[in-house]
């Protein structure tokens, strides 16, 4: 287990980039790179992290890094992995390089899922890291299939008739695991030790591995930048974002299920859910509570834990 005092002081992700104060994705990248075991290369999909860390002539990356397009990080990484193999075969390079492909939820859940599915199916030795801030934040907070039900975004505004997004968050970890890969995990930057442990395990795996990390966005969630880590914790503690591993198809909860915090504790810290706390939307709030609880219980069941939220 990763403990604070053992963390490397080396910053492969350099300070000075232009991401927002309190940016969850930025924290998720810094932590991920601190989990590296050796030489590492990254392929980054278009998104906040990419645009804000490499504004020419600057870069925040002290590792080899490629940005290609929005939907193809997994495919570019696949090619890079094969290049290293082929060059090693003909004696033109030496030594293992761990490759991570990085994408936001839009670049992963939506536009990039085909390329990712291909990468997983082909069995490339790549870690795919999805930092999930639950909407297209870079283009101005539009809904993605990772946006949770009820959240107001600029394409699912909390209107007089429709109270924010109507659909549930996609079961991304389940989709990845269904490819038969040996390691998938959900994580939260609120629990750094758990997250980095998972990152280390993912790198160790010989073959594809996926980490889905919750990374709050103060701008899009309309929250206090100082609350980023708190939000990342409360999301897990309310059961809205359960953290677990799927090892060779077997689910394992990362935190012992205890009493869940009320969802309101999470919603009241964020402008994107504020409409749901109005009395006239109590039915919608109730529906979200029920849906979240059902999802949490579903995962508990898959993990073989007693199905209770009390």
């Amino acid at each position, binding site marked *: 287990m990763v403990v604070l005092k053992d963390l490397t002081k080396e910053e492969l992700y350099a300070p000075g980039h232009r991401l927002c104060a309190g940016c969850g994705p930025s924290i998720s990248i810094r932590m991920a790179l601190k989990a590296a075991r050796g030489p590492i290369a990254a392929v980054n999909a278009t998104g906040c992290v990419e645009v804000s860390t490499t504004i020419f002539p600057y*870069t925040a990356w002290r590792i080899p890094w490629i940005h290609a397009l929005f939907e193809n990080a997994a495919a570019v990484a696949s*090619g890079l992995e094969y*290049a290293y193999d082929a060059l090693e075969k003909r004696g033109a390079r030496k030594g293992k*390089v761990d490759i991570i492909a990085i994408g936001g939820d839009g670049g992963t859940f939506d536009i990039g899922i085909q*390329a990712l599915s291909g990468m997983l199916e082909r069995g490339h030795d790549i870690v795919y890291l999805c930092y999930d801030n639950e909407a297209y934040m870079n283009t101005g907070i539009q809904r993605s299939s990772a946006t949770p039900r009820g959240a107001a975004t600029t394409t699912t505004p909390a209107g007089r008739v429709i109270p924010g997004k109507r659909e549930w968050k996609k079961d991304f970890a389940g989709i990845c695991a269904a490819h038969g890969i040996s390691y998938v995990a959900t994580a939260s930057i609120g629990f750094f030790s758990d997250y980095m442990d998972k990152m280390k395990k993912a790198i160790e795996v010989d073959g594809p591995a996926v980490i889905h990390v919750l990374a709050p966005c103060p701008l899009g969630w309309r929250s206090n930048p100082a609350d980023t880590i708190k939000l990342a914790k409360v999301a897990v503690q309310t059961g809205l974002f359960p953290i677990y591993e799927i090892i060779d198809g077997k689910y394992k909860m990362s935190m012992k299920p205890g009493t869940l915090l009320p969802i309101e504790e999470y919603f009241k810290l964020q402008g994107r859910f504020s409409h749901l706390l109005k009395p006239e939307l109590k039915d919608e709030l109730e529906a979200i509570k029920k849906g979240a609880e059902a999802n949490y219980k579903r995962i508990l069941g898959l993990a073989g834990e007693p199905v209770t939220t009390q």
Partner: protein
Amino acid sequence: MYRKKGKFTGEGIIPYSGEGSTVTIEGAAVCTQTGCAYTGNEAVAYAAKQCNVDVVSAYPITPQTIIVERFSEYVANGEVDTKFLAVESEHSAMSACVGASLGGARVFTSTASQGLALMHEVLYLASGLRCPIVMAVANRALSAPINIHGDQSDVMGSRDCGWIQLFAENVQESYDLTIQAFKIAEDKGVQLPVSVNLDGFTVSHATESMKACADEDVHKFLPPRESFFKVDPTTPISVGGMALPEYYYEFKRQQEEALQLSKPFVNRVGKEYGKMTGRRYGYLRTYGLEDADAAVISLGSTCGNVRSVARTLRAKGKKVGAIKLWMYRPFPREELLSAIKDLKALAVMDRAISFGAPQGALCSDIAATLLNTGSDIKILNMIYGLGGRDIPPSTINTMFTDTLRAAKTGKVKERIKYLDVRE
């Protein structure tokens, strides 16, 4: 800031001498070659095999699929060391090529039609990131309506993507140009992707006799790729970052400079290849232009038919000629001007419609080439062969008649003509 272009020497214009279809270079040490019968697709796959490609990433699409199939056989039988990536779409095929190329590998792919269209945004990435990828395109029509047969609508849609674009007339040229493409692309002075275009079915599926070099001669001609820069932990660079208005324009201006300056390398490699094989390549090939009043210019397989009709007409005393463009991008402006300077009329054949444009794409390029040169060559634009519509010698004959009339009268009856279409 930018390098001055060399003086125009007229190099790279290769005339057909006599009736032969090959140019033998005097004093050249021609390598031993084996006669064989291949389709265009098989010839391309064989060439890629001999080029010791590190990574192939591809997706099936008619009429290119056989290239991928043949290459898969080489991999499955252990005849190559190539890492073969059978991806889930052409978008990922080109994306993986970009990743592999940035990693320092020699990379090859092939596609056609919708596949090339699906790759579109990645094509810009490949050139913008200076990836010397080689891609064969078995040219095919675009939907809708769906049609699997040959025309050049696909490649014309990607002519502004910053790739060097070469066109093969037949199976032999498909083989020859594929080998040359790697040498051109990977040269330190170029570092750009190259596409080798062969007409769908007409070349891709037609079996012809050709000559293949021995493996060791190809290896000597094309040593393993040495990358100029690469994404590797030994050199941790960031590639593909963001360039805002204060830098973006310079990147793009330099990219255009790079593509323009790649031109002499195409000729140099063509010359070197000629020394090895006896088949000299360059930018364009001319037939009968020494005394022609009227000529036809085209790309790909049609060039052979045009030359054949021209030969018949010349035997009857008609002053006609033909031009074949091997290199379409960068456009060989000076060489073309020099080749056509004595013509009175030129018919330009476009096997694609540039919807809503004044003319077809090749014709627009030629019109732009003539702009402000004082030339009064009459230009006729001939659209033909869409969706695999046959182009018989009789039609080409009529086209020559039209062009000769324009040369004689100085008048163009129809600015743009759609050949052999019901309307």
